[in-house]
């Protein structure tokens, strides 16, 4: 199969994720969108690894998974803490810091 299709897919996923971060208000959804972006990158890495015929891209995908996992853990911890104090996961309600 033509690898460029995977690249288009990854670009689309990345855009969806980016858009989601900007548009959605629920912290957890925002957060999932970020993960989507990371995974879109993974897809790109793996596709490029295929294009170039070397393994780097696949190995990188590994590392990215780790990082994404670490991000998930930290992010969930922060959101949980906020949730405990406010009982809401909406980004909009976090509005004490205003210009």
């Amino acid at each position: 199969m033509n690898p460029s299709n995977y690249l288009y897919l990854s670009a689309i996923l990345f855009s969806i994720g980016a858009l989601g971060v900007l548009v959605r208000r629920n912290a957890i959804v925002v957060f999932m969108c970020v993960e989507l972006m990371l995974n879109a990158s993974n897809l790109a890495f793996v596709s490029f690894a295929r294009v170039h015929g070397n393994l780097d891209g696949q190995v990188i995908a590994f590392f990215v998974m780790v990082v994404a996992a670490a991000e998930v853990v930290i992010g969930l911890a922060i959101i949980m803490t906020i949730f405990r104090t406010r009982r809401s996961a909406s980004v909009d309600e976090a509005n004490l810091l205003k210009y």
Partner: protein
Amino acid sequence: MGEVYLPILVLGILGLAFGLFAVFAPVVIGPRRYNRAKLDSYECGIDPTPQPIGGGRFPIRYYLTAMLFIVFDIEIVFLYPFAVAFDQLALFGLIEMGLFIITVLVVYGYVWRRGGLEWD
């Protein structure tokens, strides 16, 4: 190359067909007798307080388990290639992976001590 995955696809389609059959067959062959009580959530005694749809949430406690899972799952992801290539990596592999595992163990000890491994 891709043919290796073909059986998975075929089996997946078969599984999907079965799943869809199981889901939609009752609509066709099953009886349909309307009864409002039947459509209610199963309850016994008190009103179940949380409503999962529309406002209900997963209890936070489970996120903790999820986080721990992610940490260890990732460890596993790294352990596999190491294990497979272990014979070639020789002592270097052992040392590096030992460091890696010990690091994870340290975190594990920390979580344990901090009450992350308590359930009720």
